[in-house]
């Protein structure tokens, strides 16, 4: 089946409440600009550059929200978005937990009506992301449980028809565009835990009986008739700045390769072929070309010229887990240090939140985001738009140090609150007339060279307990 042809049909018959900022038809009409179109091959896609905005951004918000937010885990240290999968194994605690809590006849899909989104305020979400100092976000448009958060045309298993009965994706994309502050991106799981078309029908995991999947519409070809169609819908309807694939290991029976080159070429071309082209970016889980490498729940220990992104949870779970307690959450100090570390090594940080099924964002997550935002308000000049120096870091002193370079500045980010004198190696770019300032402090600082080091006098009162940026004027001529 010719996927591209199907996509044209999809576009032509669109699309009720769709957000169409640059209608693909109109965009195509002005194509043939300065650059040739991308072809659906890895070699062609590999000529796609990482967009400037993504390099400059450094900090984004990951949002895991879906039906799994309803059971919200089966205990601490459990990834709640995998509830359905864990529930399917008798050996997993979630199997027993579900039976004891909801009864064996209560199916996973019976959670769908409880996924209400009744207090979902997309505008407030975007304002929170702004307050966090985030430059972009990625919302789970569909996770491994196959429940789409937008009214998909190729299935009825979506939030427009069941549960919230709203276009959760479209509302957030619209809010983000209206405010124009945070670039909207979408996560999409290529594979699914259970889906008859994949060869794993949904079951009652206590009786073994096959059960219907809410909203499932039979298709012959999981990828061609469904997965690729959904990717086209996301691109054509919502025009996201970022596509973040996942779940590529849950392949259909027979393990055919994914055919991501087709939607990715379309994605790049529709971003390019418009009066004001825009940069878009994809991660490395489409099983083909990628713009940035994903480091899930870990960081890259060395500076890597290949752009990369650390995605990480605040607690243990990606989806909302109601069993987590505050001590399970990373501290604001840890997260700020992580942001500085990742930035110094050419990475971005995609920090996760898991909203509740009613659409509210847990208080502890909001507080962490606002703490980071407060820090960025003072120190953002050393983060946004910066690039790694020849050496990323110093360790072994009282506080770790991370370096970044931005126009006219060399930045020394101290992970913590130093006192007295800060000593750094003498090879930092510094001339006799250089001025050193502390971001958030109004006067230049005294400094001197001795013993092969540069010694900077630290003010008695520091702008932050978390991390402090000493910035050197550096006219690079």
């Amino acid at each position, binding site marked *: 089946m010719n996927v591209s042809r199907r996509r044209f049909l999809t576009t032509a018959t669109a699309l009720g409440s769709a957000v169409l900022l640059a209608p693909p038809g109109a965009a195509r009409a002005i194509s043939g600009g300065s650059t040739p179109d991308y072809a659906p091959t890895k070699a062609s896609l590999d*000529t796609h*550059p*990482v*967009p*400037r*905005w993504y*390099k*400059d*951004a450094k900090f984004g918000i990951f949002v895991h929200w879906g039906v799994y937010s309803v059971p919200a885990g089966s205990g601490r240290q459990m990834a709640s978005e995998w509830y359905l999968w864990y529930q399917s194994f008798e050996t997993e605690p979630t199997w027993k937990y579900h039976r004891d809590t909801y009864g064996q006849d209560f199916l996973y899909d019976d959670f769908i009506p409880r996924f209400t989104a009744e207090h979902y305020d997309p505008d407030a979400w975007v304002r929170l992301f702004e307050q966090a*100092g985030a*430059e972009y976000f990625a919302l789970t448009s569909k996770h491994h449980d196959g429940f789409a958060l937008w009214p998909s045309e190729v299935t009825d298993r979506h939030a427009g028809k069941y549960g919230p009965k709203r276009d959760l994706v479209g509302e957030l994309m619209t809010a983000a565009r209206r405010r*124009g*502050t945070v*670039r909207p991106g979408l996560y999409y799981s290529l594979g699914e835990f259970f889906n008859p078309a994949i060869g794993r029908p949904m079951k009652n995991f206590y009786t073994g009986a096959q059960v219907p999947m809410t909203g499932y519409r039979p298709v012959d070809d999981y990828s061609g008739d469904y997965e690729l169609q959904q990717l086209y819908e996301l691109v054509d309807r919502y025009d996201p700045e970022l596509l973040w694939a996942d779940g590529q290991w849950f392949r259909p029976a027979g393990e055919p390769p994914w055919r991501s080159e087709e939607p990715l070429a379309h994605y790049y071309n529709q971003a*390019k072929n418009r009066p*004001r*082209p*825009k*940069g878009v970016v994809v991660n490395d889980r489409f099983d083909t070309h990628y713009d940035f490498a994903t480091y899930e729940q870990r960081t890259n220990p060395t*500076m890597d*010229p290949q752009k990369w992104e650390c995605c990480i949870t605040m607690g243990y779970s990606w989806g909302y887990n109601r069993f987590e307690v505050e001590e399970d959450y990373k501290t604001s100090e840890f997260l700020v240090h992580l942001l500085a570390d990742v930035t110094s090594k*050419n990475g971005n940080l995609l920090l996760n939140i898991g909203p509740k099924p009613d659409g509210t964002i847990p208080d502890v997550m909001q507080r962490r985001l606002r703490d980071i935002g407060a820090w*960025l*308000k003072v120190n*953002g*000049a050393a*983060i*946004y*738009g*910066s*690039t*790694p*120096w*020849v*050496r990323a870091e110093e360790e072994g002193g009282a506080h770790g140090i991370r370096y970044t*370079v*931005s*126009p*006219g500045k060399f930045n020394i980010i101290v992970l913590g609150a130093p006192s007295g004198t800060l000593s750094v190696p003498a*090879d930092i*770019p510094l001339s006799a007339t250089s001025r050193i300032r502390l971001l958030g402090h109004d006067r230049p600082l005294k400094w001197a060279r001795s013993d092969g080091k540069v010694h900077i006098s630290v003010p008695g009162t520091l702008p932050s307990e978390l991390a402090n940026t000493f910035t050197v004027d550096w*006219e*690079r*001529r």
Partner: protein
Amino acid sequence: MNTHRTEHTDRPEEDFLPPPVSLTVTPPVPEPGKAVTLTATLTNTTRIALRATVLYLAVGGTGTGAGLGTLAPGRSVTRTWRTRIADDAEGRIVCTAHALFDVHRHGSDCTRATSSVLLPYRSLRGAFDNAGIASDDALTVADIDGSKSSLSAEALASAGLAPGAEVTYGGVPFTWPDMRPGSKDNAVAAGQTVRLSGSGSRLSFLGTSTWGEGRGDGKVVYADGTEQPFSVAVPDWYGANASAAVVLPYRHIAAGRDDSPVSLFTFGVDLVAGKELRSLVLPKVGDAPQSGVPALHIFAMTVN
């Protein structure tokens, strides 16, 4: 208001594949204490001028930066740096060419090339790259097999192998690594070169193998340049092996103490007696330990 945040105007000309920087190191295998020359060429393949460009050349953590000003589209610039490898340099040294430049009013970018050179290790200890010993109350600090298993520091001490202990097996004296649990305490034999000096009639090793028999070929290099190849085949550590020099009653695995014995072995190669030694190329068995792949661990060696 945050003036430093990304300006949401897309300028497609600022989206580009990294401008290439090349790096050559001459000689390709430099020697400690001797000169090395780094040459880097940065080519602006983008459609914009790269402003306030600085090109760094570095060996290990230290280097030199040269201001290049503005590099127009299509332009190339080459910089050379001659320096000296430190007298005590050993192991893997990373040479770096790192160019940074401004691309817009609030944004900088960089491009980088690296080339690593492998110098001989000055001693076996310098070549230690794996932590294989953990104490019974802190198991996770070591990982001898890529599966978070380790030798027990307490069990080793009970067998006479406390940190720094002098022991003799089969008439050959060894000094056990004087390292705290969790420190790098053994070299995974992967073809690396270790300096030797003096002479003797036999080179002996004390070690063990994880994930199966550690089999590979190494060589001894004499001061006169002659080479003597040798082969090793060291049994797997798991179990009480009759040919072992030491059998420990238990080991650590990721889940905790595992009451299965593990074995350490001696092995080696006869030397041309009295001939001055220069270096040893360890058998190439496997790189960093990983599950399912044999790795040969060398904790001590002796020429006698």
